[in-house]
């Protein structure tokens, strides 16, 4: 078997250099995936984002590309770039390209595998009811504004990430979702979602969903605070948790488009 692979690889190298990483990517190990993830974060995440969803039309977490891609296609693009676009060529070896491809494939596969455990409809009931999620989060324009809009969270986040956010919400707060507290000279405290921060001013969406702006020099104190998002570790059952994750994974509509006449 080993001889056969080497034989294939040699034949590939002689006949069609692009074929070998494709074959290689089908035999990756856990260590290969880790190496692929590391290489991705070093070389790719700067433009594509940690979840691979920063470039419009491309979302590695959802297995979405602008056109269907074979492993060989991906490997070639990683190594050669795409002419006349910001995607540059790189000096990674074929083996490294294969590891990155394997990692990209695992991103999409991992998501699909986890999302099937729960029940979407039951998850929505928990989301709207017991979980009280809509007090802070909105879906399709319905719900609160103090937490991230989740209308498209299934596209943006993988199921394991969603699960972690529910169990340990403080672990990974995106920079644009941080909370901030200001204390006015009279002792009044205002806490809210941080919208803007500069040398002299700070801007929040406060707990009453008002857009507020403060002059820092006029404040008694100010600083970051933990996210108000609670952990659902002890308030939801494992099944409810899986249901909510399934529901969130199903949210992939960016906005409501009314019927046209």
């Amino acid at each position, binding site marked *: 078997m080993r001889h056969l692979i080497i034989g294939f690889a040699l034949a590939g190298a002689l006949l069609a250099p692009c074929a070998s990483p494709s074959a290689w990517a089908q035999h990756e190990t856990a260590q290969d995936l880790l190496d692929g993830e590391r290489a991705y974060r070093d070389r790719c995440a700067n433009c594509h984002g940690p979840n691979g969803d920063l470039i419009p039309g491309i979302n590695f977490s959802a297995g979405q590309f602008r056109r269907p891609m074979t492993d060989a296609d991906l490997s070639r693009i990683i190594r050669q770039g795409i002419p006349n676009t910001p995607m540059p060529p790189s000096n990674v070896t074929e083996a490294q390209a294969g590891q990155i491809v394997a990692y990209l494939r695992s991103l999409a596969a991992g998501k699909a595998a986890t999302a099937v455990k729960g029940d979407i409809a039951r998850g929505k009931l928990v989301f709207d009811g017991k979980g009280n999620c809509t007090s802070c989060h909105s879906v399709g324009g319905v719900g609160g504004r103090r937490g991230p809009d989740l209308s498209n969270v299934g596209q943006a986040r993988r199921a394991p990430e969603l699960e972690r956010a529910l169990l340990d919400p403080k672990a990974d707060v995106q920079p644009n979702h941080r909370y901030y507290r200001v204390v006015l000279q009279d002792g009044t405290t205002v806490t809210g979602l941080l919208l803007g921060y500069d040398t002299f001013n700070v801007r929040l*969406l406060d707990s009453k969903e008002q857009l507020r702006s403060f002059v820092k020099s006029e404040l008694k104190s100010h600083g970051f605070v933990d996210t108000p998002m609670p952990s659902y570790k002890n308030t939801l059952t494992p099944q409810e948790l899986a249901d909510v994750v399934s529901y969130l994974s199903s949210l992939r509509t960016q906005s409501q488009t009314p019927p046209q006449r």
Partner: protein
Amino acid sequence: MKVKLVIVVLLAAASLQAQVTYDRILAGVDKEPQNWLSYSGTPKNQRYSPLTQITPANVKNLQQAWIWQARSLEKYQATPIVVDGVLYTVEAPNNVVALDAATGRPFWQFNYTPAPEARACCGRVNRGVAILGNTLYLGTLDAHLIALDAKTGQQLWKSQVAVAKSGYSITHNPTVVKDKVLVGTGGGDGPIRGYIAAFDAKTGVEVWRFYTIPGPGEPGNETWAGESWKTGGVGVWNAGAYDPETNLVFFGTGNPAPDWDGSTRRGDNLYSDSVVALDADTGKLKWHYQFTPHDELDYDSTQVPVLADIQWQGKPRKVMLWANRNGVMYVLDRVTGEFLKGKPYVKANWLDGFDAKGRPNRVKFPSKEGTPIYPHVHGGTNWAPPSFSPRTGLFYVATWENSGTLAVEGQFPRAIPGPNTRQTTMGATNLVPFYNDPDTGEAYGVVRAYDPQTLDQKWEFKLGDITWGGTFVTASDLVFSGGRDGYFLALDAKTGALLWKANVGGQINAAAMSYMVNGKQYIAINAGSALFAYALP
């Protein structure tokens, strides 16, 4: 009384960001002088602010409070709206930003890239957003209407208004009337059939549509030869006005297409170059007045309709004031559409008078060799908003004087030879020197005040270049304006005397407005790619 007013303003500011009900929009600056809830302050479009902290006596002390720089090199035409300390503006073509109105610092930004097929004749511009409740409304260059959450900038819905691929676009601020959002379709220099459509403000579903060109069987279709009605243009690309007493909404309409060759569309070409008065609930036409029948000089009538209650021949009358691109100023009865008066306000030679019903008697026509026609294709004024002060009773207009053109049969008009050639540049590069000399009678920009009862000019302030700046007037009798040469000016509303100026380093392509936050009055103006706010120290 003064103390009382201040308390009222402070209380209003303290009731942070309550829902913007339609009653609030309707009263606008009359009840909430600290806010600017629609394009012109109220649906009457007077662009008049009751704020009086900045006066003719202290305006010389105005200083820059902040600048917000847009990341766009397009002409910046949007008038901001201000709601309880939050300012909303549009970075061309279609990015919306919410700023702290006291510091100019952003709360959020919504980015929208119009579809590649979006094609606007005259720049990828936008004139601003509208608000109702907690929702902002944006018309896009690719002819969609987008609803945004005013607190977060999240898109709530997006409705197609027209098909961008067919040449339609939207560049103006939507007009909110009760529970509907009204928007017109631009693109009328090409073979479209323009319309105004009303959308349900909550759902984005289209409720009614009014075609600016009547279809077969409808009155007015006979004013288009043959099949020319199908592609006759007549876009709508500027703000509408609303009169709650008659429930009428008013829009100016654009030129017929093709612009220069009228031979293929014989007839008056209704309702091109007109004002149409529509029932706000149904979109049914109640009356119209056509300013320029069978236009062959691109005299769009897409000016901002200004509604005013004035004394007319000794009696109070509900009128509409209109300084038209065709060089003529009009007073119309806004209840009936009756033509009350028309008079050239700049050099205009294409007509020599009106019949009893107000139809102009046209005396100049395009010829093979070229006929000198005044005003120029860009008009005596264009889209930039005028203003009206109920205090002074004067109508303030930023105009182009002595601008003319050689109208050639079926062709784009040529510049009149000589130094006036430069006036033809619509989108001149920022602050390029302008060579015309107003003192020798060459074309120039000028800010003027008119008495609506006589349409006589009361004063003027000449500019060193042409202007797309519009005007804005306050209750302390200050008129703010500016021009392509990049100066922002404060003039005495009674005399036109220059009281203050600022070099804003870029052409002014919008009219100013005012608001108050934390007891401080601000004047905002766009110039170049930036929004400037001025206040007293």
